């Protein structure tokens, strides 16, 4: 135990399963949890849609809500839930709180884009067409409403988190780096309390396109993350969701009388040269670097379903020790930048509640008994970058 241990004192979760730490624990700890799916809107793709959200609960001003596209609104909302959960909505505390957001962006105006694409069919002067349409049809505020660092910007405006504001980009890797950097800053004394997390809103054709340009999406009926066959598409089923965490040094949390859900004892990340076929070894290396206790552990896996990465993770965790895998994307869908923060949150909830999750897919995930002392959380990128953390009792 050290004064600078990194403890988790607030969790803000949103997914198709609902909202809040308690709700997620309740749903996921009940055997036989069923996914919430929408297989119609984006056929042939299935997605896990956003639940109904009363945005006003966390974003009081309608004006603020209007300045954000859904992705920013979702992240700002989840950040507020995390801050409430940590009892951290205190002016002085927020004014010194550091923030790292793992962000995507690019929630474009589909109607404007479509109008341009349609008009382009009969035009040869396409560059001119772009100027014509974009200058007249783009909403001036759209740029900011979908710009990557403006999720953090909106969190500052709405929740008054103003110590510092940094935005990382790069799919799952952004989430890994956000957690890793936040934890390292606290552990080294560079920061005492941080808000870290990410959001992903998949219900937009461009968000699906970002995967499907390289054929990553699963195209047949829903299956668990471990069961998606290669002839059913690329294996990824996406979801809308967000995960934010309030991280504090142990000393800081104790000084303000906060109990922690759990502690992050170590984070490791990597950039495997996957084309060289070494992903299994690379994942094993990342997991080894965490210094996990020599016992059977639950692994809250952020596996995306992408065939190569998901297969490699499964192989690596089987060989690196005995892990009881829990692939939560089975039930939430892949949350991209939010995937790693989400994995950490679920790991912390299992520690906090003193019980492992039941298998989300009993055919492919082995049972585990007893209160977990330590839980592995992983996020192996569907295309690049790997990360894992060991979450332990605070």
């Amino acid at each position, binding site marked *: 135990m050290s004064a600078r241990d990194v403890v988790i004192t607030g969790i803000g979760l949103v997914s198709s399963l609902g909202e809040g730490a308690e709700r997620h624990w309740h749903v996921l700890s009940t055997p036989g949890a069923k996914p919430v799916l929408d297989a119609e809107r*984006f*056929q042939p*793709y299935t997605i896990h849609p956003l639940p109904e959200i009363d945005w006003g609960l966390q974003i009081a001003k309608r004006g603020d809500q209007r300045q954000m596209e859904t992705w920013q609104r979702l992240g700002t909302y989840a950040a507020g839930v995390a801050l409430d959960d940590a009892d951290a909505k205190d002016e002085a505390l927020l004014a010194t709180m550091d923030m790292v957001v793992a*962000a995507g*962006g*690019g929630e474009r105006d589909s109607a404007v884009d*479509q109008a341009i*694409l349609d008009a*382009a069919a009969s035009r040869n002067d*396409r*560059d*001119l067409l772009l*100027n*014509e349409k*974009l*200058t007249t049809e*783009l909403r*001036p505020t759209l*740029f*900011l409403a979908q*710009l*990557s*660092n*403006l999720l953090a*910007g909106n969190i*500052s*405006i709405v929740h*008054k*988190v*103003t*110590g*510092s*504001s*940094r935005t*990382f*980009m*790069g*799919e799952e890797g*952004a989430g890994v*780096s956000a957690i*890793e*950097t936040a934890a*390292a*800053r606290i552990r080294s004394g*560079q920061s005492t309390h941080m808000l870290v997390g990410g959001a992903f809103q998949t219900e937009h*054709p461009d968000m*699906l*396109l*970002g995967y499907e*340009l*390289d*054929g990553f999406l699963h195209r047949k009926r829903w299956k668990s993350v471990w069961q998606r066959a290669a002839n059913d598409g690329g294996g990824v089923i996406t979801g809308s969701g967000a995960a934010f965490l309030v991280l504090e040094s142990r000393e800081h949390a104790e000084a303000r009388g906060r109990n922690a859900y759990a502690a992050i004892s170590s984070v490791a990340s*990597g*950039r495997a*040269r996957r084309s060289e076929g070494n992903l299994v070894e690379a994942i094993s290396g990342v997991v080894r670097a965490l210094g996990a206790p020599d016992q059977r552990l639950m692994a809250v896996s952020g596996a995306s379903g992408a065939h190569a990465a998901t297969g490699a993770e499964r192989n690596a965790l089987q060989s690196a020790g005995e892990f009881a895998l829990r692939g939560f994307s089975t039930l939430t869908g892949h949350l991209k930048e939010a995937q790693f923060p989400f994995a950490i949150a679920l790991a912390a909830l299992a520690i906090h509640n003193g019980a492992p999750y039941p298998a989300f897919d009993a055919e492919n995930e082995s049972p585990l008994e007893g209160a977990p002392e330590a839980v592995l959380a992983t996020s192996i990128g569907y*295309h*690049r*970058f*790997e*990360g894992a953390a060991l979450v332990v009792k605070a």
Partner: protein
Amino acid sequence: MPSTTDHRGRPVIAVTGVGVVTSLGQGVEDNWTALTSGRSGIHPITRFPTEHLNTTISGTVDFLASSDKGASALTYELAEIAALEAVAGAGYDVGDFAGPLFLASPPVELDWHERLALYDSADLDLPVYERLLASAREQLRQEIFEASQFGAIADRLADRFGTRGLPITLSTACASGATAIQLGIEAIQRGESERALAIGADGSATAEALIRFSLLSALSTQNERPEKASKPFSKDRDGFVLAEGSAALVLESLESALSRGAPVLGIMRGCGEKADDFHRTRSKPDGSPAIAAVHAALADAGMSADEIDYVNAHGTSTPENDKMEHLSLSTVFGERMKRIPISSNKSMIGHTLSAAGAIEAVFSLLTMARGVIPPTINYDHPDPAIELDVVPNVKREAEVGTVISNSFGFGGQNTCLVMAREPV
């Protein structure tokens, strides 16, 4: 022997290699010559047609192989060129840097040309949302896919330079370049590495990017004489000039630099930041977040405001920024602010967005090392409300031992770097 730890017992951070590309040219020497000659890199846009646009000028980098290949390709090439110069200059093997990489780069969406190409092969009988998706899955396009992934550029750079670990791609809007440096400094201070590569690169001056900024009324529309349009601190300033460029810095513990006899180009003394909760594009009217960022940087550096010799301004040439920057600096430096030289590199290179903080850090280091302050050009009609020594129009020889460089961005981003010529 200088001390290799600072006032907080942390490793002192030296800069041992720099590289830069702007519309003024490629490489430190070409840029420095142009910058100190007061030459502007701003020109009429030729990359795309400018009909219907209110702004028809920019500081695009038009002389690279990727200049017409889209934002993603150009941003990579800009980053690569700057990093090659920096890493080689620092005396490291350009294929085996073996330290972490921090890349400030723009959030780039699928290029319109790529989007249109996809649509050309789409099945128009499908529902609208499905057309691009169907055409994507029927003919996978690795290159377009990579351009849509935010982590792709850093991944390629990591391969190219043999950097260590998962590279971090970041965006703090127009403060990004400074944030990349700050992240590198912090990693070395934590003892994670003896060196880090910080890059800011931005090749995203597409028609859509220009239109987006234009719709926010952020850009100058003084198109008639492009080289005169960027006029920070002038009365008739009317917006920034969109530009491209890149800079790379090899950050290294002073101890490591000295032990291997590497060139020490300057010292990163401290950094500070403070988020603004006032508005998405406007600063808090009292300038308090910018003030707090400068104070935080000075405290981090263990220095007082009296010890700063020169300010490398954010100086975008927007009515709002220059006023706010003046207000915040005057609050920090008091009466002395009227006499501290302050100049804006953006008067010549325009606003290079994600790259600006890194480019301006490199120019700040050169300013100290060479004892020459680059001017603020186009300073013909001073804003009477902004009383500053902007080093008007002509470079100035001066002993500069310490610099602060400001970077402010949309979304409440405020970052300040403190640099020194020599270790203490």
